[in-house]
């Protein structure tokens, strides 16, 4: 049975061997997405709130602290505590739209 707070069964070299190429590819996908966004016509004159959240989240990845996944999710969460008056739509944006909470 795995105990809570168990470290990975693999050592760091094994983790890099197993996952590096996959995540290198994902990093390039992210870079290409940001380039694609920059190349497009600026139709609003402001940064899309989702891109702003993404850039803020990227900064978390290299701030030297752990728990990156939870902190990224936390950054992209609605932190208000009261129910909203009415559900205006069924879907979600991935990060709180301006004016949330």
């Amino acid at each position, binding site marked *: 049975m795995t105990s809570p707070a168990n470290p990975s069964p693999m050592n760091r070299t094994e983790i890099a061997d197993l996952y590096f190429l996959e995540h290198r590819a994902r990093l390039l996908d992210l870079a290409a997405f940001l380039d694609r966004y920059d190349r497009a016509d600026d139709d609003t004159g402001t940064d899309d709130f989702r891109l702003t959240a993404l850039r803020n989240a990227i900064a978390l990845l290299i701030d030297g602290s752990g728990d990156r996944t939870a902190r990224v999710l936390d950054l992209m969460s609605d932190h208000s505590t009261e129910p909203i008056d009415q*559900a205006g739509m069924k879907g979600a944006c991935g990060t709180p739209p301006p004016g949330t909470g």
Partner: protein
Amino acid sequence: MKYIDPHIHMVSRTTDDYRRMALAGCVAITEPAFWAGFDRSSPQGFLDYYRQLTDTEPRRAAQYGIRHHCWICVNPKEAEDAGFAREVMSLIPEFLQKENVLGVGEIGLNKNSRNELVILEEHLALAEQHDQLVLVHTPHLEDKLKGTRLIMDAIKANTSLDPGRVLIDHVEEHTVREVLDRGFWAGMTLYPDTKCTPQRAADIIEMHGTERLWMNSAGDWGDSDPLAVPKAIVEMRRRGHDTASIEQVSWGNPVAFLGQCPRFDAGE
């Protein structure tokens, strides 16, 4: 390795998916009542859906040696019209008596609205009144953290439900600890783009242990993978997790939680 997928919406999947799941080792599933991608226009639409869950799907699954169980409710995406939801809820007690029904689910919140919360509380009261297990849907993406807390607060404040008989589903790294610490069971949903990947599910198991935790595909009509659970098993195996840990999250824990309902049959 045999496994259970404790949350999958087979009404949205093809018979070929049943075949592939059986080949991958699936022997039992549970199917919560959910949103069809559009709002039903009448209680009769829900009645037909509940008949599909309790009659048609068990027979379809049995063709591949898979035991099919289900959960009944009005899902939170169709709870904003509280009057309509109550009309549909009046149909539920009859279906709670069906032989493959394990409890009330997947209830919860979607956009964390007042009406969603009211209907959630009425479902919880129904579950309490009929001594049912509860399967809880937590909201998507930016709404998850707030919704998970509102749901757990509602259960604690307004019911005497034993958290050991409630599974809070779709947990991620920012909600799993709080769910487990408050005594609930937790489900990790394995989705390609939203919720957890098999890799992150394995990470969560490494960080939080294997107690009161399960994995499911929540395969449905959207981007999802009915073979996500065996893929997570492979992910754990290739990292070197021991067989006992893998079996606990993919078999033992679902059997322990679902087995609290005497109707559950894993085919052991």
